[in-house]
């Protein structure tokens, strides 16, 4: 039983973590919020002045913002659809007995451990490059014209790269969930004459619903902040074709030195992420038994 003594000890042992995280969250966030109301350019030191919500007005009415918002949604949505659909397929496949299942499983989860800068460079140069890339070589071998992926379809190409990185995560989570499905239920349904499609729609999919929600929410948090893949492959271009919100804020603040405008963008990103986070926290909170 917890005593007054152990309660005091609990507070004491918890405090370093709490203080650190509180500092990490409050200090920079308060600074970002403050900067977002200033005219603040790193190239013009000493000329900071309070300009109210002007940074927000500029940021939110900038055509680049709408492009970035659209790109962010397309990137998050596209990768989610592809990884969840692909993940279900792969999970069903890996759940069946076949020779070398353990090895295939390792091959499929491998991309998750490849650092984003490596995966971006490998895809950009060695696979998608229209001159030296492997895809171009295959296209020429088939008598086709090589396709310049990152110039002709930049956003789709980045979606493909990011999907490759996240498909293992979705597969692993969905496979874990699938393996907890009671096989007797499936056998009983089969005896009752339910076909494979019926079993999938009425038993397997509902069973995977929770895992699908978890995958959606966790991936969304990470996908909203995709950065290295864009920096290394396209630098946000051509134009703003592959600029997402994260990249836009980075470009505005660290490339154009506009701290005020960048900060307003940062706050907008925080608000967007929080809308998603609220759902995620509810999900996980419901599952937590304390």
């Amino acid at each position, binding site marked *: 039983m917890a005593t007054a003594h152990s309660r005091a000890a609990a507070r004491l042992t918890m405090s370093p973590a709490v203080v650190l995280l509180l500092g990490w969250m409050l200090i920079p966030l308060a600074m*970002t919020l403050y900067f977002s109301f200033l005219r603040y350019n790193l190239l013009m030191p000493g000329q900071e002045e309070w300009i109210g919500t002007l940074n927000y007005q500029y940021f939110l009415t900038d055509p680049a913002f709408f492009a970035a918002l659209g790109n962010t949604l397309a990137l998050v949505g596209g990768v989610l659809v592809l990884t969840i659909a692909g993940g279900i397929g792969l999970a069903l496949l890996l759940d069946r007995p076949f020779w070398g299942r353990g090895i295939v499983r390792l091959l499929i989860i491998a991309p998750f451990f490849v650092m984003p800068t490596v995966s971006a460079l*490998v*895809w950009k140069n060695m696979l998608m490059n229209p001159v030296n890339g492997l895809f171009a070589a295959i296209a020429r071998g088939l008598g086709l014209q090589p396709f310049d992926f990152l110039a002709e379809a930049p956003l789709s190409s980045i979606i493909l790269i990011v999907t490759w990185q996240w498909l293992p995560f979705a597969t*692993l989570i969905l496979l874990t969930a699938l393996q907890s499905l009671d096989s007797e239920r499936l056998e009983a349904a089969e005896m009752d004459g339910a076909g494979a499609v019926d079993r999938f729609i009425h038993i397997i999919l509902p069973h995977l619903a929770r895992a699908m929600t978890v995958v959606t929410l966790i991936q969304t948090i990470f996908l909203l*902040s995709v950065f290295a893949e864009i920096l290394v492959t396209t630098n946000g271009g051509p134009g703003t074709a592959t600029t997402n919100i994260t990249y836009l804020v980075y470009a505005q603040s660290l490339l154009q030195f506009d701290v005020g405008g960048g900060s307003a963008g940062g706050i907008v990103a925080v608000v967007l992420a929080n809308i998603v986070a609220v759902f995620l926290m509810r999900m*996980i909170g419901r599952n937590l038994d304390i």
Partner: protein
Amino acid sequence: MARAATNRQKLVVTLVAWTIGIVIFFPILWTALTSFKTEAEAIASPPSFLAFHWTLENYTEVQQRSDYFLHFWNSVVISVGSTLIGLMVAVPAAWSMAFVPGKRTRDVLMWMLSTKMLPPVGVLIPIYLLFRDFGLLDSRVGLVIVLTLINLPIIVWMLFTYFREIPGEILEAARMDGAGLRDEILFVLLPMAVPGIASTLLLNIILAWNEAFWTLNLSASQSAPLTAFIASYSSPEGLFYAKLSAASTMAVAPILVLGWFSQKQLVRGLTFGAVK
């Protein structure tokens, strides 16, 4: 009859699964193969798969042209350092939440997780400016600090879920026998929690090793870990496929092996036990 049918079915599934597995793994395999080619063979068209002159020259040249081992060492220091510091802070916190839960423990846990939802770009500018003013830009210390803080919520959560599976009576018995708090954590809890702590350590080293947003923005030549170092190969003058492949292979291989070992913990750690 039925046996033959299932065997045939198993053969088909085997073929399909291996094909998909190799297609997904292919970019990694191709990078590893290219790292053993000469630059001329690396860009040759049509490309050769195995019938090329195997060479190790790229591996030695990567080190000679730029101090590869410095960046490798930076990655080790930053990922291991931030994980160890994180563990030191998180073990006591997770102990108290798992064994002395109060009314607000649940709220504290959820709040900690919420800091993980904060998009990095929302706090990039202040961190960048603070680091500039404190001389922490392009320093390993700075990166260790940031990575410790961004992974701390995950470390606390993972440890918490592992600690909760340890029966509290054992700790109480130790306390009855006169063990102080420090002894209770060090000599009773930690030995029992070794598998859980090891998983936490592994997963967080992987996450920190591959973290790219902060390392790209806060490091330059001296403190750059492999994530940032590899990105320097994207400049046109650095574009040598075979050397890029050798550097990439060396950057990915150790963490890939760690990842394969800890795939089960990955599910548990990243979903906070919400999927079993």
